[in-house]
């Protein structure tokens, strides 16, 4: 009997010791477990780390709405000094390249129908004569307006080139009342699209990895039934969640660094402001995204649902309503209002300030405050929801 008692006693001691040991390191073990989950899925890892690179390169080099070397044809029935000058100046600009001169209306129509031509410049007959003697000469810009955005841009650029020519003539003729605008391009004098897209890509990637991955990782445990096991472990639920969040936090920090390095060294978009604040604000945004992921995970029960919610509620609004591609100012008021609740909108705006414009943290105070409020709100709500689910 005594021996049995002894054994029982030492057993109890062992358990106590173990539990002490566990308490200290169990959290780390949980974190380790989550890291294993990620590291052992090579394909997902590759995509998580490779996606920012591919997206940044696409956005930096391929995705642009600026018009460059648009193919235009010229129908010049006048063929004089002025028309030749204008055609040459259009061709010389970075926006247009004249690919063909047509000789008749018929040919013009044919060329247009075949496609591939963005604009046609049609000069009136006796263009220069009219211009110099009556002061009025007409030219037509025919554009393919299937894409209205490009069409308006083309007309705008062509108009300003023709306007420059007109200005030149005026100066030669000493015409009174001339106002010469001197244009200064702030922050991005070469008007590179990357300056606008880098903050957007940052917002998109961080949101995607943190929110989507966290929600799916948690829901996955629910779906597989392993969540039950985790919840009966000696860990408080909050630590379980925290343990899930830490690996994604690490991954997103790596991504943050990759994106910044790529944008500085490959896209030549410098960080004009303070790196410290840029990182801090990014960390804040990562927290917002993590808490969104947490909230989603408490709302849905299947990975499929988590994914659909993520795509519907996160990917689309981030692309659309964050000001990344489409300017927010031109949206209908309802959507402008809706864009206020998209965290990425605030983050992207803050990054544009801190990184591109190089302003101090005070100038983006509003954005930072909004993000802070969002973090607090989201965490409170999801913690409440999480407790309910445990009962």
């Amino acid at each position, binding site marked *: 009997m005594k021996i049995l008692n002894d054994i029982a006693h030492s057993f109890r001691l062992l358990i106590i010791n173990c539990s002490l040991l566990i308490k200290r390191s169990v959290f780390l073990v949980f974190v380790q477990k989550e890291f294993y989950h990620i590291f052992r899925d090579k394909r997902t890892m590759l995509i998580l780390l490779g996606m920012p690179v591919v997206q940044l390169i696409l956005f930096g080099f391929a*995705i642009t709405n600026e018009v460059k070397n648009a193919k235009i044809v010229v129908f010049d029935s006048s063929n004089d000094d002025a028309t030749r000058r204008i055609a040459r100046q259009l061709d010389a600009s970075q926006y247009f390249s004249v690919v063909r001169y047509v000789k008749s209306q018929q040919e013009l129509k044919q060329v247009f129908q075949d496609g591939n031509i963005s604009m046609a410049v049609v000069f009136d007959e006796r263009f220069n004569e009219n211009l110099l*003697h009556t002061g009025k000469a007409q030219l037509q810009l025919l554009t393919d307006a299937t894409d209205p955005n490009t069409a308006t*841009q083309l007309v705008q650029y062509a108009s300003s080139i023709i306007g420059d020519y007109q200005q030149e003539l005026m100066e030669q003729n000493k015409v009174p009342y001339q106002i*010469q605008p001197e244009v200064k391009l*702030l922050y991005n004098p070469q008007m590179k699209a990357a300056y606008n897209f880098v903050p957007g890509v940052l917002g998109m990637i961080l949101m995607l990895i943190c929110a989507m991955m966290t929600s799916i990782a948690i829901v996955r445990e629910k779906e597989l039934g392993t969540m039950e096991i985790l919840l009966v472990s000696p860990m408080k639920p909050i630590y379980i969640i925290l343990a899930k969040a830490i690996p994604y936090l690490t991954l997103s920090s790596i991504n943050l660094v990759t994106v910044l390095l790529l944008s500085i060294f490959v896209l030549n978009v410098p960080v004009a402001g303070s790196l410290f604040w840029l990182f801090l604000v990014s960390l804040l945004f990562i927290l917002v995204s993590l808490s969104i992921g947490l909230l989603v995970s408490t709302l849905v029960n299947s990975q499929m649902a988590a994914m659909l919610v993520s795509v519907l509620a996160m990917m689309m609004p981030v692309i659309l309503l964050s000001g990344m591609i489409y300017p927010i*100012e031109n949206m209908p008021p309802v959507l402008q209002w809706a864009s206020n609740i998209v965290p990425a909108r605030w983050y992207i705006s803050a990054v544009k300030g801190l990184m591109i414009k190089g302003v101090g943290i005070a100038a983006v105070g509003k954005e930072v405050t909004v993000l802070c409020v969002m973090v607090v709100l989201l965490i409170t709500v999801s913690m409440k929801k999480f407790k309910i689910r445990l009962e």
Partner: protein
Amino acid sequence: MLKYLLEKEFKQLLRNKFIPRMIIMFPILQLLIFPWAANFEINNINLSVVDHDHSSYSRRLIQKIVSSGYFQLTDVSPGYDRALQSVEKNKADVVVEIPRNFEKELEREGHVKLLIAANTVNGTKGGLSTGYLANIINGFASDLRQESGQASRASVVPAIDIVPYYRFNPNLNYKVFMVPALMVLVLTMLCGFLPALNIVGEKEAGTMEQINVTPVSKFTFILAKLLPFWIIGTIVITLSFGIAWLVYGLIPAGHLSTIYLFVLIYVLAISGFGLVISNYSDTIQQAMFVMYFFVMVLIMLSGLFTPINSMPAWAQDITLANPLRYLMQVMRLVYLKGSGIADMLPQLGALIGFAVLFNGWAVLSYKKKS
């Protein structure tokens, strides 16, 4: 055999409480919200004015700029530095600085300079807003000339009258351009993602094992997976036509049947692509991520948001291997230009090619042995 498999697939789809709702809600939401947001028009540009002159000319110029409709006066600053601060705080996008003696010099010297400073973080917006401003200022100058009647005294003022014609879409309606392309996006999302999650879902649930021990052939299995998405695709596109017509009043200039033909082939292709991904994946999470990655790249390179023509040559070459690009073109061609099948044979060929390729691959990559 196929009949029973199809019955199973449909029951699984319909008994899922999420998917049927999704199939209806997703197109509706997308098509109701997207076209309003997806707009590149640049107006409502926030303007900051620094007026050192406070003359009647400077006030008239400001008035003219504001009444053009492109600009909103959001800030009046005493100096350039202060104006720059409001640009930093995003209160203003463009600064116009009118120098002291603006009016006097215009009257006396006949020419004067003024400063425009534009925020070009968004290059397109910055470029267009300075362009608009230059036009307005030119207009103001010619207003002044006409009033004073001095034009007749000097030599003739050369003025070039630029008349733009917008073909195929004279009202520059951006929605006509976006809505048909958005239908492609909706189709891709639903008919691409759902198949991608389908087979791997069975793997994760363990029901794949059961299928593997039945005499169902690889081909029949893939076919049974594919057919429901054909029907989903048809429902989605019909719904989208309805919304485009009811909400935006858009009716294709060409034949509806042309679109259906292309859509049916496209759904086959993109669902096949989803199935391939599903076959290679071990977990739903993995399938989803791989799919997300590809779809993201495909969308970016499809010409939906930004024109393919403005991409560099290498990126344009990549888009040739993008099925989205072809259907996007087809949709826009049929809706805006009324093209028929004969005009779009290359696109038809490409899509059929993709459908055969992906589905063949799906059949081959499905392994019954574990």
